[in-house]
């Protein structure tokens, strides 16, 4: 075991971590908002809205993310004069913003399906009860529907966050030097694929471990009504084991 090499690799790869985190954070936040919009469109905007939502989901889940990245990064160059006119060119020339855009559009497709499931899981009785109290419109949405739907969707959304962190690796193919980009460079220089893989893999695993803990903590916070009851889920599980 060549410890100095492993340590050196770790230091080099850590240099890519800020970029990985930036890409993941931007695309997860923007993707989450877009996913909510699409889920609402699909659930409340009639046949036209749900048609658009399902077409969006089909296209972005059915084709590889890397193709989507290429389509945006290289493909939109064909419209360069138009894009320059409307002032979007400085963004779409930059690999960082292209990768962020592709990741956002991609995660929004998966996220909207998760949120749609959450919305469908809101019990009709609770909505009826709220209406009976005279609640309606935005207040009903904010106080009853969204909290219940979010709580339902969170575990699945945690998986999507992990997948996004892994997906940022694809940005290395359009020249961004995040963790995987640096790892690829290091491997092709030293040909010590296994060692570099171990270090890079450990960085991603640590990152994902922290993220799953955060999601668990949020889940705990969002479900106080499940915490205090006498009959605990944990007891049921340990009885089975």
């Amino acid at each position, binding site marked *: 075991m060549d410890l100095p090499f492993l340590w050196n690799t770790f230091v080099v790869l850590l240099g890519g971590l800020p970029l990985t985190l930036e890409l993941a954070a931007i695309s997860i936040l923007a993707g989450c908002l877009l996913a909510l919009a699409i889920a609402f469109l699909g659930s409340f905007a009639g046949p036209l809205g749900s048609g658009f939502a399902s077409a969006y989901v*089909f*296209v972005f*889940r*059915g*084709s*590889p*993310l*890397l*193709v*989507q990245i*290429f*389509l945006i990064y*290289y*493909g*939109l*160059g*064909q*419209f360069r004069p138009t894009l320059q006119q409307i002032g979007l060119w400085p963004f779409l020339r930059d690999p960082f913003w292209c990768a962020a855009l592709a990741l956002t559009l991609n995660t929004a497709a998966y996220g909207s399906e998760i949120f749609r499931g959450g919305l469908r899981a809101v019990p009709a009785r609770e909505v009826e009860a709220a209406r009976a109290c005279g609640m309606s419109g935005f207040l009903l949405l904010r106080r009853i529907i969204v909290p219940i739907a979010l709580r339902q969707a969170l575990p699945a959304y945690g998986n999507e966050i*992990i997948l996004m962190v*892994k*997906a*940022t*690796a*694809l940005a*290395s*193919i359009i020249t961004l030097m995040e963790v*995987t980009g640096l*790892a*690829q460079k290091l*491997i*092709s220089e030293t*040909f*010590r*694929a*296994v060692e570099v*893989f171990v270090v*890079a*893999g450990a960085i*991603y*695993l640590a990152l*994902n471990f922290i993220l799953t803990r955060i999601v668990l903590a949020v889940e705990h916070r969002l479900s106080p009504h499940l915490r205090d009851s006498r009959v605990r889920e944990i007891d049921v599980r340990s009885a089975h084991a």
Partner: protein
Amino acid sequence: MPPALTDYFSLVGFGPGGWGAALLTATAMTLAVSVCGFAAGSALGALVAWAKLSRRRALRVLGDAYTTVLRGVPDLLVIYLFYFGGSAVLGSVAGIFGAGGFIGMPAFLTGMLAIGVVSAAYQAEVFRGAYRSVAKGELEAARAVGMRPWPMARRIVVPLVLRYAVPGLGNTWQLVLKESALISVTGLVELLRQSQIAAGSTRKPLDFYLTAVLLYLAITWVSTLLFRRAETRVSRGVRRAV
């Protein structure tokens, strides 16, 4: 037909100067590497699922470690590991026989191995869940009539596990299909790589990447239909509660 559309069709069509044949060959390559990788992943995944269900602690820990690592690490890293790692091994083997220099790992083999190893982690979870859904009584009955392990696996366990595993395997297949696009970094001329080549030589990236998206969507759509049929087939004779 508007001229833009005519231009597009002559670009991706089968006439002189059209890239249609090349794109279709590349689509076949995408399918070939995906199917081979998926099959390798099924074999390895069944093994990993068996380890995770084993009574021996060491095997369970090993299986858990495998699925945790391979599901938590970007696929691209695994591809680099096999591509550069495999080339390094090949190079040192060739060194023993006196040959020098860089010997590249065959791209198809790299792709198949990388897809196989990653999809095995996902398939193992699918198989494990499916095995746990198999009613204990069925296995006991098979043992009670004196079935030996191999006939029992072939005639009882595999058909029953498949019944529960097909929907999950459909998801894994979609993952594999999309992962196969990453194999283009090793130079294998599959659909994405071929689109890159065509885009570069015609300077029409949008047309070709859009075509690639359409071809991927076509494959996805057809495979969804096929998996739905497979699901009907493996669950024939089952009465649905819900």
